[in-house]
């Protein structure tokens, strides 16, 4: 424990113990009013004891329910003291955001750094803090903020619902009004550094959102928001070049993760595949429109995506329609007369979809295998499973989409 601190978890426990003790003494007071125990001194003493405990409990609960701590979430008593300390600091230092622009480690840097590496503590800090801006703009070192948010939203340790609660708050804060800056007049140093910070935060958003990008579109219902709202934010995030890169690079693994665990019910399963295919379509279309550097995409993105199937321990019945080179040469032949940037952009999108269809195929196959709908890796899948696999591939990469791209480019050239 540091100076000027309290331990909220112990404090909450204390409030409960005070309440239990008060209840017990109230019961004793009622017992003392029965028959020959009706003694005024006892009654008075017990009432004073109750009153003392009551005032103590009130004070503890006032702290617990103050704006420093948000106890309305499911964490209840398990929040950590970092939230208290951070909110206390922010309340007493309206210029907290200006501190972050002065090139030195701030109090908020120190507080966040303590929990940033732990997914559990980082998440608790975010969930326990009702005012999110300091957790985004309060650090001089943006790397600390990056670590905090990536820890708290890591798909390996964070549930879909929890990640949704955290990320929706994050994007709403980043793209919302920045009214908190009104506490103190900014200097030119503040303004300059803040512009840099904002760019870095936009890049960071791409990394945070990348594993969860399907929840911005086809799987938006999992986060209790609309696909329109999700796409609106995803588009804004993808405006930043590095963010678009991160989203692009994260699409393959997001797709695989979300398709690997499919519902048992066949109708639900197809519905989920449809939703995910819609999400992939939205992401690839959005990234096609974002100004993603083509050279980087070629060297990083595709190689990243293509390593995923290679790493899987499955020997799959691989459909020849999914060979990447085939669709690539098909597209090159179609578009070799159109302006270079548009062609590479369109090719890129089709390559993505073809690769993503491969990944989706493997994910659905893997899901069928783990759920027992396929007995052995080398077995020929049943007609139902084969249909499901073909359906998955067709939804993500199909001749209609290729035709649409061609039509778009033809329209632009005519």
């Amino acid at each position: 424990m540091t100076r000027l601190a309290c331990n909220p978890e112990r404090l909450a426990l204390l409030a409960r113990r005070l309440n239990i003790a008060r209840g017990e003494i109230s019961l004793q007071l009622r017992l003392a009013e029965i028959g020959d125990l009706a003694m005024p001194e006892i009654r008075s003493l017990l009432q004073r004891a109750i009153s003392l405990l009551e005032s103590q409990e009130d004070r503890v609960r006032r702290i617990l329910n103050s704006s420093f701590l948000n106890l309305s979430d499911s964490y209840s008593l398990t929040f950590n003291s970092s939230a208290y300390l951070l909110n206390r600091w922010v309340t007493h230092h309206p210029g907290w955001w200006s501190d972050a622009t002065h090139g030195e480690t701030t109090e908020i840097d120190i507080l966040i750094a303590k929990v940033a590496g732990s997914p559990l503590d980082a998440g608790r800090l975010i969930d326990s803090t009702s005012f999110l801006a300091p957790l985004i703009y309060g650090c001089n070192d943006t790397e600390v903020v990056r670590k905090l948010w990536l820890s708290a939203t890591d798909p390996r340790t964070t549930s879909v619902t929890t990640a949704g609660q955290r990320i929706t708050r994050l994007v709403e804060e980043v793209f919302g009004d920045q009214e908190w800056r009104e506490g103190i007049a900014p200097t030119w140093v503040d303004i300059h550094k803040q512009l840099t910070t904002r760019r870095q935060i936009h890049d960071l958003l791409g990394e945070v959102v990348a594993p969860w990008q399907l929840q911005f579109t086809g799987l938006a219902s999992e986060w209790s928001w609309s696909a329109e709202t999700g796409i609106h934010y995803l588009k804004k995030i993808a405006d930043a070049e590095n963010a678009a890169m991160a989203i692009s690079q994260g699409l393959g693994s997001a797709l695989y993760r979300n398709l690997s665990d499919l519902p048992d019910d066949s109708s639900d399963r197809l519905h989920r595949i449809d939703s995910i295919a819609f999400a992939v379509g939205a992401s690839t279309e959005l990234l096609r429109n974002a100004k993603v550097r083509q050279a980087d995409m070629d060297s990083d993105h595709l190689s990243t995506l293509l390593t995923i199937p290679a790493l899987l321990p499955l020997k799959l019945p691989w459909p020849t329609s999914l060979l990447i080179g085939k669709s690539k040469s098909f597209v090159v032949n179609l578009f070799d007369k159109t302006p270079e940037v548009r062609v590479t952009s369109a090719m890129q999108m089709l390559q993505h979809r073809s690769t993503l269809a491969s990944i989706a195929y493997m994910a659905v196959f893997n899901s069928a295998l783990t759920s027992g709908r396929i007995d052995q890796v080398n077995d020929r899948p049943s007609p139902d499973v084969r249909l499901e696999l073909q359906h998955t591939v067709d939804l993500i990469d199909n001749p209609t989409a290729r035709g649409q791209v061609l039509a778009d480019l033809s329209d632009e050239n005519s």
Partner: protein
Amino acid sequence: MSTPLQLAVRIQDTINQQLREISRLSDSDTWVGPVALISHIEILRVKSLLASCIDILRAHHDSSGL
């Protein structure tokens, strides 16, 4: 056991269990600096009030000759 004595024992249990736990949770691991709103003195006052109850109840039990 007479009713006053039963109540005295029950109050003593409250001191031994609940108030001891409250006292433990009010130590320097929980409270430091300006958030030290609950002091051990206040808890001692509660203990003292309850101890007085016990004394009265015991005296009542002794005087009634039960």
